Every structure is written in structure tokens, then in C-alpha cells.
């Protein structure tokens, strides 16, 4: 089946709001190429469980595309239409299983050497959509905070290397009460600019304390979910003929309740958290990877105004000789390695924040927890500069956001 043959009944399996949106835009969908549409449906089918910003973004996209004439649509999508897919794709159930289609399409495009063309088309489309979107006004400039290096007092590795030329390095931070000061500052931003999923606290270990007004995701709190997921994966792998693609497809269909999450939880956040494990690589094993990926996904999907992430030591990767000798504690930690992980992750945090609207007014802080080192990137502060002025964390936030 091709998009031009779409009928409303084919969206019967979609959740209610997604179904309604699909039916409303059926005439648009019928004009889009098969190489593109399932990618859009992959997002649409999740509509009922998306963050408000994601929904608004999809609404805008659909609205904009619906406003285009047939000629304009042909112009926007000619590069996608030029891609050739096998007839097997037409026969697949791409309406109800768009994620599976995208997975297979991706493999097919690589195999047929069309991935570069798809990539070009996708980037051109993204740029075009970005420039066509109406300007957004943020309630307040974004603030990102990364707290790294928990449990490490010294390191031979140079820190903040990727960020130094962009920000001001502070060498005399007063660490006392620093974590509390940062949490309090984030809570204050939430109180001043309340909105759903706009202010986040991502914790690589156990939350420092309960917080007010923050969307909180914690690695330790999700331990039961991880355990259930790993058990599920093992059982799937044991099935004859199971391969990584089938495994990934099955994982994508897992619902929060199947992993032991409460039925009365926040359905949007619960689904987000499940996807961190089912779509992320390494998130099930290393807390640093979990915190980095959660930060990336929160920024990409929820576009928060405030995001504080605190990295905790991850489990140590045993070298082969220890594995063979069966020595070393099972849950031994690697604080030094985790500092290196988190240092790079904080660079990615900044990159992902800068992809969002209002990047020129955004601020970013990285603090080595319990230590006197921090770096701040802010519109008001110069890059590539060192400051030896003594400052506490509350003052540092004020400086970054002032």
C-alpha cells in the first residue's frame, strides 16, 4: 500500500488523540512519499504520550505542511520521492508499525547506498521546517547545569577541555553547600516560570533530596525497571531465531506497566523513562551513560527551560583477567572513569542545549562536585578566560543568569 491509498480506518489502532490527528491530516499524508511518511507516523503514534513541546512541534509541522499547495509539497519532498524502496516496503504494515518500518528502511537505505541521499534530504527538510516555524518566546532564557565528579578529589585528566574556549573557568569556587544551592536555584526557576516538564532534575544515582516543581528522573529509582527489562531481554534472546532487530522491535513495544511501573503514574514521564532503557545503548549498564542520554533526550523532546543533571559514579568495567579469575566486587564503582565520562557528557549537554531555540541567551554551568572548579558559558561572560575570584555556587548561578 502506498500513502495515496490511506483510509481513516487504518489508524484504528492508534491511541485516541493520535488517531484524531491522523484522520484530520489524511489528505496531506496521501501526498507524502513512502520514504518519509512512516517517519512522521512514528512520531504521531506516540502523540498521546508526548511532552507538550513535542505535541506543539508536531502540530505546527502538520499545520505548515497542510498549508502548502500540491506543487509546493512536491518541491519540499522531491528528494525523498527520488529514493527507491522495494515493493516489500509497500506491502508492510507501515501504518500501524511505523517504527519497525523506519528500522527496516534504514537498513535498506544503507544496503542500497541511498543513506547519504536520505540524510541530505532529511537535513534540508529540517532546515526548511526550522526556518518556516514562527519565532518562539521563552519565559526565561534556558539554564543547563551539570554536576560531575562525585567522589573524586583529584584527576590527572584535564577537565572542561571542550568547553574552556567557550566559557569562563572558575578556579576558586567555594564548594560548601553547593549542591543545595544549585537545587534551590533550579526550584526557584520552576516556581517563577511554572510549566509542565519545563524544569528537570536528572540524577545519576539517588536524588540528593525530594524537590519541588521539578521533573525528576533517577537511575537508582529505576533499578527495578532495569532489572525487569534485563530479565525480559534475556528471555527474548533465548528464543530461537531472535536477532537484534527483532529484539529492538519487541523492546519498542514494551509498556511501562510491563516493566513494573505503577498504573497510576505519569503516563508521559513513565513512557519517556522506559524508552531511555529500550532505545538507549548502555543506559541499562552505566549510570553515566544513563544520565547523559536522559539529558540528551529531555532536551531533544521536552526542550526544558532548566535542566540540572548530577552524575554519580558508574559501575566499574572489569578487565578480562578479573573476569576470568572471578575476582573484584560485583558492584565496584569507578569514580575516576565516571568523571571522564561526565566531563565529555557535559560537553554534549551544552551542544544539545545550543540546538534549541534561544541558544544565544542560554547559560550553562559545569561544576566538579565538592571541588573548587567550575566553568560557565553565558552571554555575559567571555570565553577562554580564567577567573580566580572566590565565589559560592549561588553567586555563580546569579552570574551565569544575570
Amino acid at each position, binding site marked *: 500500500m502506498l500513502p495515496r491509498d490511506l483510509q481513516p480506518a487504518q489508524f484504528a489502532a492508534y491511541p485516541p488523540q493520535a488517531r484524531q490527528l491522523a484522520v484530520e491530516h489524511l489528505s496531506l499524508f496521501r501526498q507524502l512519499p513512502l520514504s518519509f511518511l512512516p517517519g512522521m507516523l512514528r512520531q504521531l503514534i506516540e502523540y498521546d504520550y508526548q511532552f507538550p513541546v513535542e505535541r506543539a512541534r508536531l502540530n505546527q509541522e502538520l499545520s505548515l505542511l497542510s498549508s502548502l499547495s500540491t506543487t509546493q509539497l512536491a518541491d519540499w519532498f522531491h528528494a525523498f520521492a527520488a529514493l527507491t524502496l522495494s515493493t516489500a516496503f509497500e506491502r508492510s504494515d507501515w501504518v500501524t508499525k511505523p517504527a519497525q518500518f523506519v528500522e527496516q*528502511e534504514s537498513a535498506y537505505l544503507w544496503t542500497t547506498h541511498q543513506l547519504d541521499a536520505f*540524510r541530505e534530504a532529511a537535513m534540508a527538510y529540517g532546515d526548511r521546517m526550522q526556518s518556516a516555524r514562527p519565532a518562539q518566546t521563552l519565559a526565561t532564557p534556558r539554564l543547563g547545569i551539570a554536576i560531575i565528579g562525585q567522589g573524586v578529589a583529584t584527576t590527572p585528566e584535564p577537565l572542561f577541555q571542550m568547553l574552556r574556549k567557550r566559557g569562563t573557568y572558575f578556579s576558586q569556587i567555594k564548594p560548601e553547600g553547593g549542591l543545595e544551592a544549585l537545587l534551590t536555584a533550579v526550584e526557584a526557576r520552576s516556581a517563577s516560570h511554572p510549566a509542565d516538564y519545563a524544569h528537570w532534575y536528572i540524577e545519576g544515582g539517588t536524588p540528593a533530596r525530594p524537590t519541588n516543581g521539578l521533573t525528576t528522573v533517577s537511575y537508582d529509582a529505576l533499578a527495578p525497571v532495569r532489572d525487569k527489562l534485563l530479565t525480559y531481554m534475556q528471555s527474548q534472546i533465548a528464543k530461537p531465531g531472535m536477532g537484534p532487530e527483532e529484539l529492538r522491535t519487541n523492546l519498542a513495544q514494551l509498556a511501562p506497566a510491563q516493566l513494573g511501573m505503577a498504573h497510576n503514574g505519569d503516563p508521559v514521564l513513565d513512557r519517556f523513562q522506559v524508552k531511555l532503557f529500550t532505545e538507549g545503548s548502555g543506559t541499562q549498564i552505566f549510570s553515566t551513560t544513563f544520565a547523559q542520554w536522559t539529558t540528551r533526550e529531555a532536551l531533544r523532546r521536552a526542550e526544558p527551560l532548566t535542566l540540572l543533571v548530577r552524575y554519580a559514579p558508574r559501575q566499574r568495567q572489569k578487565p578480562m583477567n578479573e*573476569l576470568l579469575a572471578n575476582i573484584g566486587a560485583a558492584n565496584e564503582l569507578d569514580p575516576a572513569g565516571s568523571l571522564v565520562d561526565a566531563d565529555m557528557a557535559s560537553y554534549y549537554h551544552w551542544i544539545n542545549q545550543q540546538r534549541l531555540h534561544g541558544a544565544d541567551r542560554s547559560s550553562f554551568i559545569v561544576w566538579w562536585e565538592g571541588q573548587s572548579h567550575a566553568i560557565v558559558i553565558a552571554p555575559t561572560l567571555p570565553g577562554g578566560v580564567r577567573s580566580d575570584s572566590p565565589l559560592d555556587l549561588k553567586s555563580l548561578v546569579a552570574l551565569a543568569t544575570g
Partner: protein
Amino acid sequence: MPYSINDRFASSRLANLAPQEVARHLGRTRRDFLRDATGMALGGTLLSASPFVRAATAKKKRKIIVITFGGGARDQETFAPEGQVNIPHMLNELAPQSSFFTQVTNHGILGHYVATASLATGVYETLNNFSAVPPDHPTIFEYFRKDLGRPVSDAWVVAPSNGFNRIGESESRSYGAGLGAQVILPKRLLSAASSSTTDYSHLLHDNYETPLYAPQVSGGEFELQQLERVLKLSVDDFTQHAKSLSSPDELSVYIARQLMRQESPSLLWITMHDIDVAHSGAYSLYIDAIRRTDRLCAALWKAVQEEPEYAGNTTLLVLPDFGRDADEDSGGNGFQHHRTGDPASRTTWMMALGQGVRPGVVYDSPVQSIDLVPSIGVMMGFSAAQSQGKPIRELL
């Protein structure tokens, strides 16, 4: 498959440059850095004076060792200025002796098995990366053995990843069965050697992209029983030595050295894989693996000098199978994967050193990873008839 086109809205271009421009930029960066750091010369002007004419007698003794600097490594963690700290051995010991190619592109599928198979056939293979299937086209081992009439003992593959057991031999009608290389999977050997006492199944889960998946191995690989007969290693010695090593790649180099001593193959292919731990998302482990691989490459070159069968007549070729995604590409997650197909993930380098290679020269001219097989073919005197690559003239 390791592919993702999930981000329909990838809007960030690498420094607003076209892919070819980015690839050239990456190459120039490597060139400038090597020239500054090691005093290496630019190669373009030296070509006309190339002295690499070898006598037929030299071809008979010629040994080739290929190391895939495994699991994908980026410039910024290796040959870019900020990466130099991670590759002291290659930079200070190997690069000054080598011809260095700054711009090696891989236009194929960026999965480790399929990309390594493509390196070995000189054709961009399209097989399923996660299946234990043979390449569609003849491998370098088949060309080598059939054209030159070499015995099975003269071509070997050592690969730590369990999915590589079929890489030694294609299903090509005109080549194929019985003409390929023997494949040693040291981790699988170790698991088999130790299975009576301990469960080492976790060792086999080496595919960091899908951490809980270990492909079924069936046929083609070196068996435990051959350990003593071929490598002159008792199972006890093998397992005891393994217990002193920190990684599967160290085990591979240990096995490679045993092979060099006992079998002295003329064509030895070693696939490193530790670096692929990057898929776990832990940057420190990725860096540790690069540093280890750097050390192992130098150790292997040292072993070449120490082995009478290899010293003075061996060419070593070191190259990554491909790179990893750029930090700035919104379709990826930086170093963690190689899914975007961006220039950083497609553009790598190659180092050639030893017999017949001009030392201390940097070549900027673009080459493809599939050019490796026909180049070795010219060096050794066989024809890579079905390869789609071209011999690299700077190596000939």
C-alpha cells in the same frame, strides 16, 4: 542493524561544509598535525621518485600484516592535536616509519562485520552485519591462496568478535570453499577451553552495539583441538596466559604472535575490537581502549622485528574500519555510535610501514577503504579480480 534515520530533523551541518569538503578538511588536519609533530614530509612531490620496485624473489618472501584499528576511532581521539595523548606509540614510533594516508573514506555500510568484510573483499558488501554469513565476494585470502598457490597455513585471521567467524572465505563459485583463511576467535577458544570449570558466556557478549547479543557461530573457525597441534599451546597454558591479560584484543595479539612463531603466515589479518566499547556510552572506556590499541599496534610491530621470518620483509598496514559520529551531528550521539553516515564516521586514515614502503611521508590524496585489497594484490603478486577498488599508486 546499526543504522538510524530516526532524527528526521537533523539540522546541524558539520561546519556548514559539504561532505567532500569536510573529508578533505579532516585529511588536512591529520596531515598538518603529523607534519608538525613528527616532521613527516608531504608525499605528492615524491611520487615520481618512487623506488618501490621489488624483485620476484622479494615477492616470494613478502609478508603482509593488516590490523584494523578496531571498533571505529575518531580523529579527535587519535590524530587530531587533542587526541595525540592517546596514541603515543603510533605517533612517535610508527608514524615516522610510515607512509600515512590522511583521507581514507568508507562509502559502505558502517557496521563492523560488514565493513571489515568489505575491507577484506575490496567490495562494499551488503550482508547483514549481525549475521554469521560469509562475504558475497572473494576475500583477499582466496585471491592470495588461489593465484599464488599458497597452502591453508599461509593465510590467517584473528578476530576477537565472535561474529567474524565467516570472514575468511566467501561463497564465490570461482573461489570459496577451501581457498580461504583460517579464522581464530580467541575469546571463543577461551570460552571453550574454560567451559568445564567456569561459565564465561559473558565474554562472548562482545557486540557493544547490542550488548546482550552473541551471534551463533557455526563452521569456519579454528577449533580448540587445533590449539596444541597448530599453535603449540596447551589448553592450560592458553588459559593461564589469558588470565594475565586485560582485554580481548590483548589476547588476539598474543595469539597472533603464536601464529607468527609457529606458522609464519604470509598474510595475517588482525581485527581489533576493544574500541567498540564506545557503544556503551562511557567515554573513559573508549579512550582506554584507544590507548590500549595504540600500545598493541606498536607491540605487534616490535614482534615483527623480533621474528626472523618477518624482520625486514614485512609490510604492516593499520587502518580503522571507519570512524564514529561527529559531536555536532544532531542525528547521532557523538563518539557513542557510527549511525549517521556523516563525514566523520566515513573518513579515516591508513598507516603503512615496513618492506617496500617509503617512511615518513604523508599522502593527502583520497583513497577508499576498498582500495586496500587490490593494493596488497599488487604488492604480493595476485589479482583481486572482483574488487571494486583501485591499487593505491603511492604504495606501489
